[in-house]
């Protein structure tokens, strides 16, 4: 289920071993970042949320009774941090609202034009679509986009059976594929007319 190192770090962290906490954070920070990316508001910085989760982990990990529950706990902390940031942003945005009820959203770092090639542009669009999926599909897809994260590890983090992770991934990819196809059609009206 978990690697021996991960179990050792988790146990040490729960017992308050600072080195274990440091090591544990390094083991988990990448997928935590993916969870934050899946849930965070567009204009909230990932770095701020990561720091928040890290502080929470350092401060509260010793309260975990079962080191095996670390992944779900970290996931809950990350989602909570992202959602809290969303609520906070809403309050702040009211100050700069337009007065007609609309809230001026900040720029999305993913929508900032880059100097990349077509593949980067496609990646950006894919990420946008992935982040718009329902949460149960968005999460496994974002986690799977982390290199080296297996179905088993995703299942552990999400507390789901592997088969469910697999089917949700397949569903997510179908939705992304269809959304990409629709977007392509919309951006190529001439092509659509030719087909009809």
């Amino acid at each position, binding site marked *: 289920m978990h690697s021996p190192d991960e179990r050792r770090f988790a146990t040490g962290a729960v017992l308050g071993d*600072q080195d274990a*906490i*440091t090591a*544990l*954070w*390094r083991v988990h*920070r*990448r997928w*935590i*970042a*993916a969870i934050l*990316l899946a849930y965070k508001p567009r204009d909230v*910085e*990932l*770095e*701020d949320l*990561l*720091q*928040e989760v*890290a*502080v*929470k*982990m*350092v*401060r509260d990990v010793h309260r975990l009774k079962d080191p095996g529950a670390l992944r779900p706990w970290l996931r809950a902390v990350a989602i909570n941090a992202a959602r*809290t*940031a969303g609520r*906070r942003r809403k*309050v*702040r945005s009211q*100050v*700069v609202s337009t007065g007609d009820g609309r809230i001026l959203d900040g720029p999305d*770092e*993913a929508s900032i034009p880059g100097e990349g090639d077509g*593949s*980067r542009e496609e*990646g*950006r669009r*894919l*990420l946008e679509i*992935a982040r718009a999926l329902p949460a149960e599909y968005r999460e496994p897809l*974002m986690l*799977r*986009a*982390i*290199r080296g994260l*297996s*179905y088993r590890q995703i299942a552990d983090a999400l507390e789901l*059976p592997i*088969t469910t992770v*697999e*089917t949700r*991934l*397949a*569903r997510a*990819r*179908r939705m*992304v*594929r269809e959304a*990409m196809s629709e977007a392509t059609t919309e951006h190529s009206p001439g092509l659509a007319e030719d087909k009809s």
Partner: protein
Amino acid sequence: MNTSISFNNDDNAFEDGLTREEILIGRVTDGEASPNDWAELQRLARQDAGVLERLAEAQRMHAALEQTVEDRIAICELIEARALHRESSGVLMRIGTLGGWAAAAALGVMWWTGMQQGPQSLQPNGSSNVAQHGPPAGTVGGEEGEAQTIPVFDNYDPDTVYSGYLRSGMKHDRVVGVMPDKFINYRANDDGTFEVLIVRQIVERRQVNRLNQLDLQADELGNPFLVKEPMPARGRRDAM
């Protein structure tokens, strides 16, 4: 053409029309396919040449998404838990909750407050302070007789003065710690180097009677934000 299939018990979580082909392509794309999965996919491909095209498309899209996500989360490699141990309670927690912009704003307020408070707040003292090395004093502003003497740091490089500020702040229990610099922007110089704008973030401990005493009105981007004040113990109607 894809056909919906019935799944065995191991796959009983499958739902609403997913095809075996989609599952197999997913496994291959994710590096989770068994030899049996490969064999099954090859059988499907012999019946429908489009299977391999769809596999290639799935792999290409996965690679593009993976690269984008990896790029986005690369920042996490800079966040270390070790640096947070000592400051994992109290002020830093609150700063962490508020976000890095609060710390940056606090630095600005600290500097401003120091200037307002005059010589004492800037007067270095103690062995850890940069002024121990004897920055010359200068006179600033004011009418005759009201001139204030403050240290002049012109002869020291900014990093030295900055370090001295941190050491002095920690000694006087004012500076709690330093958070990672925040990147703002950059531009390329003619000589191939880059000019980078960053915000340095110092976490500071302040004792105030009222939250709005700090007068933090904007974050580092200039966006206004609210400082919550406890509501007076009156009914909403009275308050209005």
